[in-house]
C-alpha cells in the first residue's frame, strides 16, 4: 500500500526536478494519443523536436513563439504571487494589441512609435486588469470569474471593431489597417522573424524577478499573497498592493500583444493570439511562479506549438495534440506540486 505523509521541509532541487518530471509524464501520457492516430511515437516526437529546436531557423521560430508567452507567463506569475487570480491575460493581451496597433498606425519616427506602442499597449492591458481587481477590492467579486469572463467581452469587442469601423478598407478582410512600416520592430537576424520584442521579453524576466525578490513592492506582493491578515496588521495597505499587482500584471500581458503587433503581424486580426493568455497560466505554473523559470517554461510550450504543426504535416497526427500537451502539462504540474507538501511512503497493509 502507498500513502502520503506530510513533509516538514521541501528539498531545493525539487524546484527544477518537478517541472521536468511533469513534462516527462506529459510526453509519456500523450504518446498514447500519437499511437491512436496511427503514427510512430518516436518518429512523431522526433519531428516535433527537429522542427522546433533542430536547426537555427527552427530555434528562432520557437523564440518568436515563446515571446508572448514569456510576457503572459510573467503576468500570471506576478498576479498569482499576490493571489490575485488573473485568468484574464488573454483579454489584456488583445487590449494591448489593439492599443499598440492604433498608435503604430500614426505616422511618426520609428523609435518614438515603438516606445509609444509599448506604453499604450501596457496601459491598455493594465486598464483591463484594473476591472477585476477593483471589483474584488471594492465589492469582493471573485476575480477568477470576472477576469475570465472579461476575456470574452474584449474578444467580441475586438471582433466588432475589425468587422465594423476599424475594418481594413484596403483588403476588405476583417482585419485592422496595418501599422506604419517605420513602426515595425527591427529584425535582429536577416531572414528570420527574430524581432526586438524577443529581446525585450528575455530582459523582462530578470527585471520582474528583481522586482519580486528585491523591492519593497515585491515583498508586499509576496506577503499579501501568503497572508493578507498579517500584511494588514503589519501596516501594509493590502488593497493598494492588489491594485498595483493587477496593474503590473495587466501591463505585462498587454506587452505580449504589443510584441505580436509590432514584431509578427503588424496589424490586429481575430486570431492574433491562439490562447497565449491561457498558455501563460501553464507557463507560470510550470515555472512555479518564479519569473526566471518563466523563460524555459515558455520555450517548452513554444517548442511544442511549433513542433506540433510540423509533426502534423509529416505524420498526420492532428496539430491539436499541442493543446492536449499543454493541458496535460498543467495537470501533471499540479499533481507534481503535491510532492512539495507530501512524500510517498510504502507501508504494509492493515491487519
Amino acid at each position, binding site marked *: 500500500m502507498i500513502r502520503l505523509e506530510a513533509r516538514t521541509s521541501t528539498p531545493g532541487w525539487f524546484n527544477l526536478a518537478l517541472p521536468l518530471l511533469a513534462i516527462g509524464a506529459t510526453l509519456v501520457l500523450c504518446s498514447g494519443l500519437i499511437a491512436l492516430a496511427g503514427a510512430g511515437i518516436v518518429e512523431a516526437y522526433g519531428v516535433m523536436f527537429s522542427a522546433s529546436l533542430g536547426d537555427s531557423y527552427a530555434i528562432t521560430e520557437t523564440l518568436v513563439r515563446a515571446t508572448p508567452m514569456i510576457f503572459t507567463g510573467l503576468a500570471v506569475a506576478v498576479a498569482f504571487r499576490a493571489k490575485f487570480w488573473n485568468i484574464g491575460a488573454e483579454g489584456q493581451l488583445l487590449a494591448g494589441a489593439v492599443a499598440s496597433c492604433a498608435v503604430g498606425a500614426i505616422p511618426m519616427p520609428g523609435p518614438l512609435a515603438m516606445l509609444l506602442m509599448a506604453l499604450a499597449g501596457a496601459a491598455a492591458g493594465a486598464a483591463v486588469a484594473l476591472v477585476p481587481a477593483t471589483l474584488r477590492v471594492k465589492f469582493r467579486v471573485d476575480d477568477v470569474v470576472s477576469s475570465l469572463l472579461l476575456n470574452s467581452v474584449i474578444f467580441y469587442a475586438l471582433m466588432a471593431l475589425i468587422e465594423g469601423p476599424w475594418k481594413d478598407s484596403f483588403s476588405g478582410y476583417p482585419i485592422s489597417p496595418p501599422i506604419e512600416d517605420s513602426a515595425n520592430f527591427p529584425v535582429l537576424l536577416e531572414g528570420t522573424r527574430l524581432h526586438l520584442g524577443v529581446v525585450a521579453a528575455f530582459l523582462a524576466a530578470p527585471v520582474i524577478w528583481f522586482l519580486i525578490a*528585491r523591492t519593497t513592492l515585491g*515583498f*508586499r506582493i509576496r506577503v499579501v499573497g501568503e497572508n493578507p491578515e*498579517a*500584511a494588514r496588521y503589519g*501596516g501594509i495597505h493590502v488593497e493598494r498592493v492588489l491594485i498595483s499587482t493587477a496593474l503590473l500584471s495587466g501591463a505585462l500581458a498587454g506587452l505580449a500583444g504589443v510584441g505580436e503587433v509590432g514584431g509578427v503581424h503588424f496589424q490586429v486580426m481575430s486570431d492574433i493570439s491562439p490562447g497565449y493568455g491561457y498558455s501563460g497560466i501553464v507557463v507560470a505554473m510550470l515555472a512555479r511562479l518564479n519569473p526566471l523559470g518563466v523563460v524555459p517554461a515558455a520555450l517548452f510550450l513554444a517548442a511544442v506549438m511549433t513542433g506540433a504543426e510540423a509533426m502534423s504535416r509529416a505524420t498526420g497526427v492532428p496539430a491539436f495534440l499541442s493543446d492536449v500537451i499543454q493541458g496535460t502539462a498543467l495537470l501533471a504540474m499540479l499533481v507534481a506540486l503535491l510532492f512539495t507538501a507530501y512524500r510517498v511512503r510504502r507501508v504494509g497493509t492493515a*491487519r
Partner: protein
Amino acid sequence: MPAPLIEMRGISKSFGAVMANEAVDLSVAPGEILGLLGENGAGKTTLMNVLFGAYAPDAGEILVQGRPVTINSSADALAVGIGMVHQHFHLAPRLSVLENLLIGIPGKSGRIDRAGGLARLNEIGRQHGLTLDPDLPVTALSIGEQQRLEIVKALFRGARLLILDEPTAVLAPTEVDGLFSALRSMAAQGLGIIFISHKLNEVRALTHRCVVLRHGRVTGRVDTPASTTSSEMARLMCGHEIVPPARGPSTPGEAVLTLDGISTSRHSGMALRDVSLSVRAGEILGIAGVSGNGQRALAEVISGIRAPDAGQMTIAGKMVARFSPREVQALGLGRIPEDRMTTGLVTNLPLADSMVLPRIGTGAFSRNGLLRPDAIRAFAEAQIKAYDIRCPGPMTRAGALSGGNLQKALLARELAFDPKVLIVSQPTRGLDIGAARFIHEKFLAMRAKGCGLVVLGEDLEELLMLSDRIAVMYEGRIVRTLDSADATIARLGLMMTGAEGHS
C-alpha cells in the same frame, strides 16, 4: 488491574536526523485518564500521530486489548477504537452537526441513516452531558461546541480510546469545567483517555496517571498526579527547576498610552463601550476577561487596525490622529498578536520576512523601494541568536518553527525597536513552561526599562504574576481596575462574570 486498552511498546520515529520518539512505552487502561506531558517539541504530537495512523513508526508495536495491530490511517485507528480530537478541528463548516457526524458513515442501501444518527447523537449526549443541536451548522457553533462535536464524532464512530491534543488551549475557563466533567463521565464508563496539555494544574486535577516526555523519550512517570506538586512535574518536563520570575517594585513614570471614552460599533464580536484606561511607563496593566467581552476590539483599536467611533487615544503623549498600524507603530507602539499564525507571521515565507514585516518600509530594511537583503538577514540572525530561537536559520519557513520559537520571534521583532508601549494578547497560550517563563522575563525586563505594557489574557495566574494593576472587561466595558495586591483569582473570576459591577 484490567488489561490495557491500548499499549505502545518501544515506539521510535525519526524525521531525518531528528529523533522525535525513541523507544517510548505507554499504556492506557479502561476507565483511565492518562496525562501526556512534555514541552513543545518533546514528541507528544508525533507519538499520538503514530497511534492515530498519520505516521508509520520506524520501530515498535501497538497492541489493542493485547492484540498487535498495524495502524496506517485514521480509518484503521477508528476501526480498532481509537479516536482523536486534534488542536485544529476537522469539521465541514457549512454542514450541520448531524451531517458532520454522518460523513463517511455508510448508510443502508446508499441512503443516509438520519434517524439512526439522531438517536445515537441523543444517546451520546445523554450519557456524557455532551448535548448539541443536531441541525445547527458548524459555523454557528462556538469553539467549545465545535470541540464537543469532535468528541461526539469520535464516540459516534465507536472510539474506546480518545486522544485529546491540548483541548483546553482554545477554551474559556468555564468551558474547561464542562469538558472535564464530560471526560470524567466517559472514563467512569470504561473509556480510556489520553490528555495532552501544558497546563500542570489541569493535568493534576483531571488525570489518574502521567507520562512525561522530553526530547522524544519518557523521562518520568507520575502515578499520583493529584498529590504531586506542579514544580515537581515541571522539573520532569524541563530537566531543571522552574522558578516563577519575581516582579520587583517599580516607579511608574508618565502615561505612555491613554484611552479616553473609546467606543466602537459592533463590527465583529463585542463592541467597546466608553473604555478609558491609561498605562504609565514602567507599568504592566493586565486586562482580564472571558474572551469575547471586547478584548479583540480593544486590541484592534490600540493596534490601529480599527478606528473607534468615539473617543481619543494618545501614545507617548501624542494624539493618534489617524488609526493605522503604521501610524501607531511610528508613535512607539509594539504589538504581539493573539493569533501568531494568522495575524502575526507569514508561515509560508522565510522567518526573516516575518521578522521585518512591520518595518519593511523603514530605512532599516529598505532604501528607495529596494530591499536591503543583507540588513534583513543580519537583523534576523542577530535576533535568532539573542532570543535563542531554535531554527536552522533566517531563511527557514516560519511555519516550520514551534509555537514557543515563533512567539520569541514576534517578541524579538517588536522589542528590537524599543517600543514605548507594548500590547500583548494571550502571550503564552499554547507555550510550554520554559518558553512561557522566557516571555515573562522579557516582559518584566521591558517594564524595568520603562516600557508600558498592556497584557490581555484569560490566564489569571499569569496576569496576577505580571501585572501592577488589573482591569476587568465585561460586555465591552472595563468594569473595574484593581491594584494587583488587592486582586485574587476568586475575586477576578467573579468580576469577569459581571457579578461585581461598578462599586
